């Protein structure tokens, strides 16, 4: 919910997919990200390559399917991060994020 953009929240503007009860958030993807990233990604900030909105990954909408896990921008609904696992590999597509900023402090 603290995706700072000027518009304040996900579900009010009617511009993206309708409310989906199965949606979780970056907190639920924390374990998956810990397989790829050493620091805690839930407190890292991501900037959407689509609309430029940025916020903490813990607050971003996440959809987990059998094929993989998708993190979306709450403002424009583009995919910010996509992770898929196969028996041999973990695939990370971060092209939807202009950058990811990880704090060194905590």
């Amino acid at each position: 919910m603290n995706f700072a953009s000027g518009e304040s929240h996900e579900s009010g503007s009617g511009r993206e997919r309708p409310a989906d009860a199965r949606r979780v958030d970056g907190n639920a993807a924390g374990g998956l990200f810990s397989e790829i990233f050493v620091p805690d990604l839930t407190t890292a900030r991501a900037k959407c390559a689509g609309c430029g909105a940025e916020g903490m990954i813990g607050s971003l909408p996440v959809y987990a399917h059998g094929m993989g896990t998708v993190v979306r921008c709450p403002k424009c609904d583009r995919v910010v991060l996509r992770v898929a696992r196969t028996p041999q590999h973990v695939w990370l597509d971060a092209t939807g994020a202009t950058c990811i900023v990880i704090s060194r402090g905590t």
Partner: protein
Amino acid sequence: MLRSGDTLELRGPIGGYFVWDIPVGGPLLLVGGGSGIVPLMAMLRHRNAALASDIEARHRLPARLLYSSRRWDEVIYREELSRLAEKDPTLEVMHTLTREQPQGWTGFTRRIDRAMLEMVAWPPSELPRIFICGPTPLVESVATTLVELGHNPSLVKTERFGPTGGSV
């Protein structure tokens, strides 16, 4: 599908986003639905332990929990919450029971809505730190409403756990 007797491997704790501790400050507003109470309970236990003997600190950092469950016998940590609130006047625990209420119940009896949040939440000018955890529809509805009521989105943290088997 899990069966009794299965071995689980646990990893963690993971995730510093949905975390509150004393330095984050308050007042502290916690809103939970069903098993969403779990991380909120950790916060209340931490607050209780850290401020055990410091009454002034408790008054500077009051806490309120609004907890939605379907029925009284489904309320998780029911006794512990009652004990904590009883001995600490700076902690208020408010339940809403959305499907069934015990005889003599005087608390809320409906899903969390704007009117309830207006009653329970501190005014935005107090800058409460807000944590909302539960089924996705509840979390998103509560978060949206609190922001509409004027709370700073950067002070509203959310943890959604997806759909629930029934509604809270």
